[in-house]
């Protein structure tokens, strides 16, 4: 087991390095840098001025060197200006070049500086991530139990009327992406002209104080899309367990139906949905981006959109690293959890 986890972690780190290098390359392509130079300097910069700006800031080094610097394993680039001062990525304003550290990268905890928010990337990501964490917590609390109940109820008597109804519901929710369900939910529950006016159509106020009125719609919108999928997986797994021999034995022994479902079937039926729930995280990340944009909730997904559409290279890199990290860790947990929950699988 220990070796298995170790190998998985190794593959995970390798994947993480490959992915961050890929993102780094894509965000540091020359047209992006040129745009960055022009937004930082001015829009009428000539090509020579752009080149000298990029040269000064060390953007013209080979990609792999820049990546190493950003990661914090290669000494950071320093440029000697014509007046003898030295500038570099690691040298903060007011710091002399001698005091400044040689390495400053992600490994040292320095994530760079956001050009849009005029703030350290690390602190932006921390605040935004905590806001999204709040959203995700409620999504999980709503989505997982309701999906499991839906799946178990429809899977315990396969083919029954209840199964048909609940399955249709879960198919419908999987067919409704967040930008569709969000629009429909706002129209029904939050529109100021027609509709029920129960909830608010924006969640901006939920960032400080979340309550049922301003936070329920975004949470519901994200939950709905993932719910159907988990419910269908649970249903399939439940239906399979219910045909197993030991369930029939229990039935013949005279155990009541409720007891069979709760005590005998449930535990085995929940192995498959566990991995599915874990693998839903990348999708939830998608949903978060859409819902935060739709409801104007300024969390992690909203930051991603801002960073990407404003060519904020270092912020976008930070956001990518965090999201890739989340995805890889959940994959790891799902793999380990699957082995742990299912004694029939041996890793060696």
């Amino acid at each position, binding site marked *: 087991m220990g070796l298995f986890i170790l190998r998985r972690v190794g593959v995970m780190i390798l*994947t993480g390095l*490959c992915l961050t290098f890929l993102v780094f390359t894509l965000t540091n392509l020359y047209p992006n840098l040129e745009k960055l130079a022009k937004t930082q300097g001015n829009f009428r910069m000539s090509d020579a001025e752009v080149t000298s700006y990029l040269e000064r800031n060390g953007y013209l080094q080979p990609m792999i060197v820049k990546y190493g610097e950003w990661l914090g394993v290669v000494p950071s680039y320093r440029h000697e200006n014509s007046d003898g001062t030295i500038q570099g990525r690691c040298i903060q304003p007011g710091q002399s070049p001698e005091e400044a550290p040689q390495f400053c990268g992600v490994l040292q905890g320095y994530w760079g500086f956001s050009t849009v928010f005029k703030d350290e990337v690390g602190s932006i990501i921390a605040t935004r991530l905590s806001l999204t964490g709040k959203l995700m917590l409620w999504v999980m609390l709503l989505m997982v139990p309701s999906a499991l109940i839906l799946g178990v109820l429809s899977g315990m008597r396969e083919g029954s009327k209840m199964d048909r109804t609940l399955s249709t519901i879960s198919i419908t929710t999987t067919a409704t992406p967040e930008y569709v369900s969000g629009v429909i939910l706002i129209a029904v529950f939050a529109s100021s002209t027609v509709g029920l006016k129960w909830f608010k159509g924006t969640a901006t106020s939920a960032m400080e104080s979340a309550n049922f009125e301003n936070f329920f719609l975004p949470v519901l919108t994200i939950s709905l899309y993932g719910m159907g999928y988990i419910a269908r997986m649970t249903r399939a797994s439940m239906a399979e367990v219910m045909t197993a021999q030991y369930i029939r034995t229990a039935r013949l022994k005279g155990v009541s139906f409720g007891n069979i479902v709760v005590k005998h079937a449930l535990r085995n039926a929940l192995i498959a949905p566990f991995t599915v729930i874990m693998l839903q995280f990348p999708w939830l990340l998608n949903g978060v981006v859409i819902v935060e944009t739709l409801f104007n909730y300024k969390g992690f997904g909203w930051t991603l959109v801002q960073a990407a559409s404003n060519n904020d290279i270092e912020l976008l890199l930070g956001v990518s690293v965090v999201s890739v990290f989340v995805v890889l860790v959940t994959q790891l947990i799902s793999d380990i959890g699957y082995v742990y929950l299912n004694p029939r699988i041996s890793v060696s």
Partner: protein
Amino acid sequence: MEPLSWFEIITRVLLQFMPVWISLIALFTLSIVYKRRLGLYGKLFDSTIGMIGFALVMFWVFTGIFGALDMIITHDPLSQVSGMKNKLPGTPLTRPDEGQYPYYLFGGDNLARDVFSRMVKGAWIVVQIAPLATLFAFMVGITLGLPAGYYGGRLDTLLSFLANLILAFPVILLFYLLVTPEIVETGIPSYMATVLFVFPLVFVGVLLNSRYKTQPKVRTPLLIAVLGILGWLYLSLISEAGSKVSVLPGFLDLFDIPAGILVVFVSVVFVNSPTVFRIVRGLAMDIKTRDYVAAAQTRGEGPWYIMLWEILPNARGPLIVDFCLRIGYTTILLGTLGFFGLGLSPESPDWGTTINDGRRLLQIYLHPAIVPAVALLSMVLGLNLLADGLREESLRD
């Protein structure tokens, strides 16, 4: 003129869809009459769910096709009519010209364009791109997944690692990285198109070669003809004057795909193919242990023949089901791209872009966003129901 009542709107919309109804009825009558001779497709008409799904899908397919022929639409989807900004469904035009349809059936959007016609035109964009992009993703996934599952070993490890690499990427991030104008300027999407679109050629080439290898008289002309035509199509598809990849001179270039559409197409194929790869790989690993594969091996068949003519046909059930689901997913992805304003032009009538336009005023005017939202929902729902019906019927054998 008076605005139309809801009853009148519905009647007029139903009348407007008349060609679609006629085609649907014709298709269903023919299919039900001959359903015993039509294999899996015919069996679909035994399941209610499958029939409902198929009807929904075909409704949008016919709508897309007739819409492209300018049959269903009431107005030009891009033209603005003065005084119709954000008007409610059923509002009459203030000064209708001669021969112009006198109403905006589903109202006007914030640029005074007809919501109904835009919805119909949007169906054509989805019907054009989604199945084709899914097909390409399947070609890529099958061409790489079969050898990975069949041979296993190093090749499998490498390809699976690459597939997991793409899968670990949040889709939206990938879109933002690939579909921005700066990246398009560097030509990366065009190069990706060049690589990804080779796979159908390789697939068809290997497919035919492995089948007719023993009959060179049939094989050689067949391969030359098929690969020649496909190669020409391929070159016309990827090469575009003025972009990074322009290999064909203009007079040989059959058609030009607008750069935006090509980028969208490439990124959708790119996102979908790793999942298909994983499915095909799993199926191949399962099926290669069967007796008929062992029999083919003993017969001395080549590995590609076994993969493409023994394993692949026996994996068709799950693949067809996944194909339907994946078209739905691709539709959702296209909508996502439109929703974030990536790739397609801002005035394009596709559903994602229209929803994005409409959501800004959603609190006050519902119809510009709700109409495309419901359209997208019904299409994806139809595909999911169709997949469900197919799964049920294919399990019954």
